[in-house]
Structures are given as C-alpha cells and as structure tokens.
C-alpha cells in the first residue's frame, strides 16, 4: 500500500514524465529557494523546447541559467531576466522568447492557476506595454486588465522540510514563489533539505499541503548567494 507516501529516491523518478515542449513552473527568487537538483536533472535529461515560468532565470552556470547552455528553454515567463550573459545572447539572437509579467501578477497567475481561477483583474500594468492585447474593464471608476491563471505540466519546488505525505514548510525568504508554483503543477515535485515523518509538522504551520504534492525528494543544496552584502559587526 503506497497510500500517501510521496517520497521518491532518485532524481530520475522525481522528474519522470517530463517531455519536450512542456511548461514548467519553478519556485525561487533570484538564486534563493531554487530546486537545484531538479534543475540539474532537467539539464541531464536534455529536454528541449521548454516554457519556464519563474520570476528569474538564474545566472551563468547556476540555477535555471544552466538550462540555457544546451538551449533547452524556448520561452521564459518572468518579471526580471537577463542577469546572465548567455540569456542576453540567446535573446538578442532570437533563440529565446520572453514574456515579461509584473512580479505580483506572476505570483497571482500561479496562485489562480492552482486555485481553478482562469482569470482575474488587476490595475497592475494598465496603460503600459503589459496591457497590450488584454481586456480592460472598469470597476468603481478605475481601469483594470484581465490576466490569466497559469498551470504547468510540472512544478518544481524547493522547500525546507516535507513530511512523507508531501506537507511542506519553507525557511525564511526562500519561500517566495515556491508555495504558489506547488499548487499549479499537474505534477508537483518538491526538493527538500529534510524529510520528516507525518505529525512532525504542526497542522496549522504547514505552508504547502500534501494534496498539491506528487513527489518529494531529499536534495543537497549549494545555496549560492547572488549579492552578499554585509555590515561591520
């Protein structure tokens, strides 16, 4: 009886079913809270034509940036990109497509996708290039644009701890887009620092409920820091 045990023991198993031209939602903000091992597995698999929905696209040689090396990404849906040279090069060469989406709209689109909400109105982007081609509607004298929910074939998520049922908690600001991506994957895979037994996470403190999670894998993380800024002690 498998029951609700979501734990898998290999990255192959974790990303099984990923195929060319799929859409992947990825958690993370910059290099903070990214599913490092799952990204590495996608690189290893060599899957092509991917649409990746993620706030950023990593840096040269780390994070989602490594998927650019073999041109695995067809399109990025992001709020801020180009922190790496290879990205710029492929973009300018027309080898990579980018759909820029305001950060809050991106977060809300993931949440909506997971929550069965196909569209919502936001004032964000009204009157700007973001609004082009989008329906405008007035509520209480103000104009809003229609944005659509996003669902991915896969969601790749980095959590701090998960129990075997797939209930997750996140550490500090590594939470970011992770719980949102988790809700909106047809297959949601969570890479964690520690797997615990059911009951070790308090029911009210669980931040991603196991119902959203299909597979859990224990990873090891480099946790590279993008901008180390310190002050005198």
């Amino acid at each position, binding site marked *: 009886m498998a029951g609700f045990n979501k734990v898998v023991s290999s990255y192959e198993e974790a990303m099984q079913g990923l195929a060319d031209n799929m859409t992947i939602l990825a958690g993370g903000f910059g290099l903070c809270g990214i599913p490092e091992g799952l990204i590495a597995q996608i690189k290893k698999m060599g899957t092509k034509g991917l649409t990746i929905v993620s706030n950023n696209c990593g840096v040269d040689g780390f994070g989602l940036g490594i998927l650019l090396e073999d041109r695995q990404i067809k399109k990025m849906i992001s709020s801020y990109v180009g922190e790496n040279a290879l990205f710029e090069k492929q973009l300018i060469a027309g080898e990579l497509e980018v759909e820029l989406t*305001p*950060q809050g709209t991106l977060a809300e689109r993931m949440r909506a996708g997971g929550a069965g909400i196909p569209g919502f109105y936001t004032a964000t982007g009204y009157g700007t290039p973001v609004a082009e081609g989008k329906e405008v509607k007035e509520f209480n004298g103000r104009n809003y644009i229609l944005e659509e929910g996003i669902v991915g074939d896969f969601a790749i998520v980095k959590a701090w701890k998960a129990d075997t049922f797939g209930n997750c908690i996140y550490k500090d600001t590594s*939470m970011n887009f992770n719980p949102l991506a988790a809700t909106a994957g047809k297959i949601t895979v969570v890479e964690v620092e520690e797997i615990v037994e059911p009951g070790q996470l308090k029911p009210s403190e669980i931040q991603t409920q196991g119902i959203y999670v299909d597979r859990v894998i224990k990873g090891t993380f480099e946790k590279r820091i993008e901008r180390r800024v310190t002050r005198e002690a």
Partner: protein
Amino acid sequence: MALSREQIAMRVAQEFSDGNYVNLGIGIPTLAANYVPEGISVMMHSENGLLGMGPYPTEDQVDPDMINAGKETVTAITGASIFESAQSFAMIRGGHVDITVLGAFEVDVKGNIASWMIPGKLVKGMGGAMDLVAGAQNIIVTMTHANKNGESKLLKACTLPLTGVNCITRIITDLAVLEVKDNAFWLKERAPGVSVEEIRSKTEGELIVEGDVPEMQFN
C-alpha cells in the same frame, strides 16, 4: 546647489510618518532607510516576502535563505513576518503599503511614470515596479531633475514605455520637491541655494509656483 544622493534620501525620509509601512526601491530610495527621523518608527516591506526588513547582516549572520528584493543578503527585525509572493503583492496591490519610493527615467504632468524600459536597450523586466505604482497609497518618485545632457525628466508627456498611469503624486529630485496634480507640477520646496528659475528651466511640463517657495530643511 543640487542635492547629493544622500541628501535626496534624507529629504525622502522626512516624508515618513510614525507607523508607516514603507517599500523602498533600489538605489536612492534604499538609502532613505538610513535617515528615518528620530521619534518615528517605520517598517520596511521587501516584495520578495519580508515585512520588517532589518540592516545588512554581519559576516556571521549571512544566510542564503534571507535576502531582500534586490537579492542582497539581509536581516529581519524583531517582530518581522515572512510570506510568499502572492501574499506580498496582495499587500502592495491591496493598498496596505503606506509609502512606496522608487526611481524613474521620466514622470509627466498626468502622474504617469516610465522607469523600466528604454527601447533599443536590452529589456530586463519590470520586476515589482508596476505592481508598486498600481497599488501603494502614496508613491514618491526620486530622481535627478534632468538627465546627464541637462534635459528635463519632468515632462509634458512621458516618451518611454510606461510603468504606470496617473499614479505619481510626489516627486523629490536633486533640485526640488513637487506635487503632481491638475496636469502640472506644483513646486513645493527648493534645494538649498537652487533658484526657482533653475528649476523652471529644467522642468518641461507646466510648473506652477505659488508665492515664496521655501528651501528644504535639513537638521
């Protein structure tokens, strides 16, 4: 004389009221955190999901899981809260952040702002800027009054792709404090030693000057 970056930040910080939740953009806005007036307590919102952002960490406090919206290592104050991105932007879009301070390339008399895209240059994205200008209760733009060629950045109509429309009400530049209303810039304060004439010469959009315009006060 035109204000330094630090002086602009100082003047920005005078806008804060006790108990304000504040979101500061990258650059000059971030510096304002260093000049919060005495007796005033504000809480910093960082849109990656942190309310109650503290100072940069000491070397031994550095934690890769604790960063700010500029992707810099950071700390949290006592009483901070941390949350996911949809919640963070619910705070912004829902108008719960009291003051947002951000930079801009151009602002016009309608309160439009252009701050994220220069055609012909590589576009990296708007990040959270469009959400911030659409949502915050009170948006302050900080920038130099003119560009390096001396051309005004306070325009009749923005020429660059917009970040938001009809949203900017207050501008703090190296030369002046201005309000935006009724299709004009209203001069409220001058930088110490800067004349109304100089400001007028560097303001393309209609500038309205009522009576004597006081100089900014710095303590």
